[in-house]
């Protein structure tokens, strides 16, 4: 054993290493001769090419089994998530605060809303059709051009006071801000069969000393019209845009932080998943300073 632990001097080690790198006696580099290196490299190249090929083949056949319009499983998307605009995140979730008298604190928020609604301008919605039925819009066939399905138009003006058209500041400067609520898309998801899903915003914990939250919803009643459902996926409905609901909060108490929750009330939408704060509802903190 003793020999195994013999300390070698640095120069000896270097010499050994040099010899390992290039051994003039046997013509070996790094323990192999050149031709051996070529052989082994060829083997590995071949091996990896074959393995990559096999893997590619597997992935290819996997892709072949996939339905291009509908995913095989949607068990993780039983209920849609809900998002809010403007979206400013604090340490824990959405956290919006601004000062009414200081326009710099809210121009960004307003800007976000304008940007967001750009996708809902008449020009952007040009390819979509006008729907008025308020019933679920089942399309089994591909009636639209290019083997697609029709999508219903949703334009910003449907949000009336919160469309940014009448009031470019979305009510922020008067302390009655507009918030836009959007429900996530899920292929072939029907929020309910008969009644349109409705947004309902309230204080999370109704403070005793203030009035219940008063909200003006746009479109009226805060509903997502049923004709926007179901969604058939981006291949069938390339121009589909989510319906929106704007909530204009009328009596937010000044200078206090309140937590507001906007839930979607519909037959198939749940908002009580303890793990997922964004499923079927959206919570946000709001603080308006005067």
């Amino acid at each position, binding site marked *: 054993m003793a020999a*195994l632990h013999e300390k070698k001097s640095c120069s000896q080690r270097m010499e050994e290493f040099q010899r390992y790198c290039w051994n003039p006696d046997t013509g070996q580099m790094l323990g192999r001769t050149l031709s051996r290196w070529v052989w082994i490299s060829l083997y590995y190249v071949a091996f990896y090419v074959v393995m990559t090929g096999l893997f590619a083949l597997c992935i290819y056949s996997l892709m072949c089994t996939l339905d291009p319009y509908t995913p095989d499983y949607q068990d993780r998307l039983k209920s849609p998530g809900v998002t809010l605009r403007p979206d400013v995140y604090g340490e824990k979730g959405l956290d919006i605060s601004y000062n009414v008298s200081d326009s710099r604190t809210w121009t960004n928020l307003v800007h976000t809303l304008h940007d967001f609604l750009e996708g809902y301008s008449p020009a952007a919605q040009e390819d979509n059709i006008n729907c008025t039925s308020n019933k679920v819009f089942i399309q089994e066939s591909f009636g639209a051009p290019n083997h697609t399905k029709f999508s219903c138009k949703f334009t910003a003006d449907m949000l009336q006071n919160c469309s940014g058209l009448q009031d470019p500041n979305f009510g922020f400067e008067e302390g009655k801000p507009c918030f836009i609520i959007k429900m996530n898309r899920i292929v072939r998801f029907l929020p309910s069969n008969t009644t349109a899903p409705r947004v309902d915003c309230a204080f999370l914990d109704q403070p005793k000393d203030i009035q219940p939250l008063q909200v003006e919803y746009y479109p009226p009643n805060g509903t997502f019209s049923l004709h926007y459902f179901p969604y058939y996926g981006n291949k069938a409905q390339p121009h589909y845009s989510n319906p929106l609901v704007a909530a204009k909060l009328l009596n937010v108490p000044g200078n206090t932080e309140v937590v507001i929750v906007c839930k979607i009330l519909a037959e198939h939408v749940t908002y009580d998943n303890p793990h997922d704060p964004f499923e079927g509802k959206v919570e946000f903190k709001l603080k308006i300073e005067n």
Partner: protein
Amino acid sequence: MGQKTPQIYSVELNGAKDMKQTDKGDDKDKYRGLWSTCLELRKNHHKEHVTKEIDLDDHKLSNKELENKYHTNIVTGLSSTQAAELLARDGPNALSPPQETPEIIKFLKQMVGGFSILLWVGAILCWIAYGIQFSNDKSSSLDNVYLGTVLALVVILTGIFAYYQEAKSTNIMASFSKMIPQQALVIRDSEKKIIPAEQLVVGDIVEIKGGDQIPADIRLLFAQGCKVDNSSLTGESEPQPRSCEFTHDNPLETKNIGFYSTTCLEVSISPVGTATGMVINTGDRTIIGHIASLASGVGNEKTPIATEIEHFVHIVAGVAISIGVLFFIIAVSMKYRVLDSIIFLIGIIVANVPEGLLATVTVTLSLTAKRMAKKNCLVKNLEAVETLGSTSIICSDKTGTLTQNRMTVAHLWFDNQIFMADTSEDHFKQTFDQSSGTWASLSKIITLCNRAEFRPGQERVPIMKRVVVGDASETALLKFSEVVLGDVMEIRKRNHKVAEIPFNSTNKFQLSIHKTDDPTDKRFLMVMKGAPEKILEKCSTIMVNGQEQPLDQSTAEAFYTAYMELGGLGERVLGFCHLYLSADEFPETYSFDVDAMNFPMSNLCFVGLLSMIDPPRSTVPDAITKCRSAGIKVIMVTGDHPITAKAIAKSVGIISANSETVEDIAKRLNIAVEQVNKQDAKAVVVTGMELKDMSEDQLDEVLTSYPEIVFARTSPQQKLIIVEGCQRQDAVVAVTGDGVNDSPALKKADIGIAMGIAGSDAAKNAADMVLLDDNFASIVTGVEEGRLIFDNLKKTIAYTLTKNIAELCPFLIYIIVGVPLPLGTITILFIDLGTDIVPSIALAYEKAESDIMNRKPRHKKKDRLVNKPLAVYSYLHIGLMQSLGAFLVYFTVYAQEGFRPSTLINLRVEWEKDFVNNLEDSYGQEWTRYQRKYLEWTGYTAFFIGIMIQQIADLIIRKTRKNSIFQQGLFRNKVIWVGIASQIIIALILSYGLGSITALNFTMLRPQYWFVAVPHAFLIWVYDEVRKLFIRLYPGSWWDKNMYY
């Protein structure tokens, strides 16, 4: 014990006389050697021993002075209170075991050894990462703290486990050594008491019978015809006479001191049958205690398997750290935050370190240790299990290990013919021709001229196992005649003994006169045995075929030829003769006077010769053959005579039948020894004298140039020199030994093997392994198990290393390609410490692939446990295939949930943002963060299942390294299937049983995903079968060199 009493029946052949002359000088050398060893050790270890010089003058004192010195009384002994005080002052009379490493140190060693350091680094990095996160953002998640804690727990738990295993095997040993408490007969308060030897104190008066172990260092006060076996102290197996006289200044050589742990062989029956002595030193202060404590100073060599594991840890740590650092740099240069990069680094370390492996190795070793214990090899140090497998030289003791350690009649010579007697241990059936009249006479002499007796009450015990009172030769003769003739005591009764001259070394014969059992024959029968040449001198006739014939020149020559031949076999030869005293001269009433010798002592009738040997154990020759075919060199190292040593070596095969020593060749060619070409000799017998004059180089030359070596008449210190010489040849050396004097060699050896029955405690303490049955054949079993465990550990490691790549690739792909993390760190731990544990242990149960005992022992520097082909094949071939299979499952799950592979690429940043709650998939659906997280965990589970399924294939292919699985038998090792079942069950529980516990990041997985990787598993199997096929088809080829691990 004491099978050798050359001053009694010496083998005066081939210069044996010279040997005897040198013996005297040699003895001193022996002691000198012993002490110089001690001094040498002392130089190396300036411990408290330095001050403890042997300072003993009690042998010079008279009884009176002794009484005063120790405040005792020779007749009444110590009083109990005195004894209690002394016991309290001096401590118990036992050798304190070698200083143990404190338990806490042992425990901590387990905590920081091996991979533990890497994991600690990982854990600490986790905590640091959390600390940084926390300082940036008070609400950061505790994931890193959990991970760090889990890693720390893993280290601590595996540490505790390894410690527990180690402790358990030590405990077996401890319980073993306490099995036989020694008793001592002591005089205290004027009463004889039997007390445990541990309670003896200085000044105690003890009585010793023949066969007792001397319970402490004693100064003999009264001893008649006392002989002791000092072999446990000096290695010399010849009995030493002991008396009360002060004969030598050196306490080691004076006759009136008996040493602790040596054996008292015999004490004259008359007048009291016991020897009395005063205890002058107890426990560690005894001579043997000094040697034992000095021997413990010899550093324990690192076991080969420990070196191999260290090598393996270096490889894995090297890979882990280099990949970790490489990707840390890549990550940083890819503009990842440093904090993220640290987390990647942790992931890479966790993926690379086989957390469960060290525990697995420990379990595997202890399983083998248990199996070996069943086969009478008790392993003290778990790692020693493997050492025996890599052993390339065994330095074996002769007595007791190779031989049965009892004299047995081996040959008879009468009627001008040599007959062979059966010397095997159990089936003691003599088959030689017993019809001759000579045999009838000879058998009578053997029976009658013998003082040995069976201890009463052993009728049911097999003859060979009965306890006999008497010396070794007489015992042999007694047993021999009991077997051949039946009840010896009855025969002796019928032939009443009227006179007897016991053996003494001047006469060199033993004689007795009996009445015959033939009532018509009134003659006395005088029977005699002794050194053959002395007996022959007294004879004028010789019995042939039952008839007395005059002893002429030719018969005398025949006698000498037979004598030489038997002596040449290393056997102790006895001559037998008798004489019927004529009834006229010696009437029935004649009174024989043994002092006056009033009976004839010449013109006797020579009957025959009988030779005895301590015969080899019947299992040994086979074991030696096995060792030889296993490429293990067996060297005999003995204190015995070269001739006996050589004879035994020949009969067990240490010197094979057709090989000759230089002397043999010289004799055959009738030339001088110097003229013989040393190249021709395959075997050599080296005596201690020759060895003493050899330089290191000469010894090396002897060790390398002769395949068959016997060292005879060696001292214990020379044993150490021989071991060191062997180790210079890069050999892994096993040493067997039993005496205290062997303990330095046992320690020095790579594996010390102590004898369980004959071995002293000091030897057992110094050894790594104890042979419970003192049988050499058990070593071969041990070698086989050791080699098997090495092969199987290779398989286990190959199995474990493979999935490292499958665990590592997800991280690399995650960092470079930016897909959502395919496999979480916690999940990796569940593979390493969950599904993979039982299967990797199961591989320990795999049977040997082929003639494991037909190949050379591994070269400890060349044949590594983890070699390049193993690492390369596991990492770059099977590991890669496994990763691809697991990735396929991962991609399938994501694709079927809506994220196609093309979408996944570079999705990582968006995917992991907590405030992106509408991430679009390939179908335009939008996902919240939690929905994605859940999908990610499903991905983890899928990847986990993918690896698990392919690990089943990996497990199956690892059953063999060369043979096809179908040659090995798919179902022969049932434990493998237990392993597979455990994998599947653990995975089922994790996926379905704990699916709702999100903390573990497992989700319910659709049943079909379990089968996605199955084709890959089969691909792995097929690929490996092809590999093995080519290895078998083209041995030595390029393929073999690169693919065989």
